[in-house]
């Protein structure tokens, strides 16, 4: 198994897909290595949040995803 990355909102546009499967395990540095260019910059912005299996990380740089985990990259919400 592997780790699934889920791109929400405009982040999906930056990568051209809303999901990508990557090698497990995955930490913050591994995520940045995976996401080069504009998406990498967007993910590093303070206002982009990260959740693992639906649970928001208080500190996204502490990311530590294992096989089977779903890692969501969440830009600022724009309301209902």
């Amino acid at each position: 198994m592997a780790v699934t990355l889920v791109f929400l909102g405009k982040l999906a546009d930056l990568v051209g897909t809303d999901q990508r499967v990557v090698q497990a395990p995955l930490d913050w540095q591994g995520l940045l290595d995976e996401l080069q260019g504009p998406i990498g910059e967007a993910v590093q912005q303070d206002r982009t949040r990260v959740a693992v299996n639906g649970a928001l990380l208080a500190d996204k740089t502490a990311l530590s995803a294992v096989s089977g985990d779903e890692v969501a990259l969440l830009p600022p919400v724009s309301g209902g």
Partner: protein
Amino acid sequence: MARDVRLLTEPFNPGQFIGPFTNAHPGLGGVCTFVGEVRADDDAVEALELIHYEKMTLAGMEDLADRAIARFDLMGLLVIHRSGVMRVGEPIVLVSAAAKHRREAIDAVDFTMDHLKSDSWFWKREKRADGWHWIEPRERDHTDLSRWG
């Protein structure tokens, strides 16, 4: 306390939810209901899309409903939010609160709407003649939230 929270991916008719919700709370003093629709303030907007995240959006709405219930003295709370593509005039959101006293019902709707609009897991984009455009958060949303301390 009846809590009914729904994330819908198809169009809905507010009336079909409001009547049964009111009738489910005999003895209530009042029901306050807010229905938000896709606004026609710009003819250039052909459609609106709300994107939700399966693992977080509904759970976040349920958590918000619990906070409203903890904060206000309610008999029932109904929270419905659309996801997907919508056109002008289609309902996006419905919040209805039943309470013994009107102030609790009105404030609960106000509180829930402020948080739904600015603190729930939805991403919005608009379709114009030249394609889709993502909507950024509005400053006003944060001002609204700060009212609730």
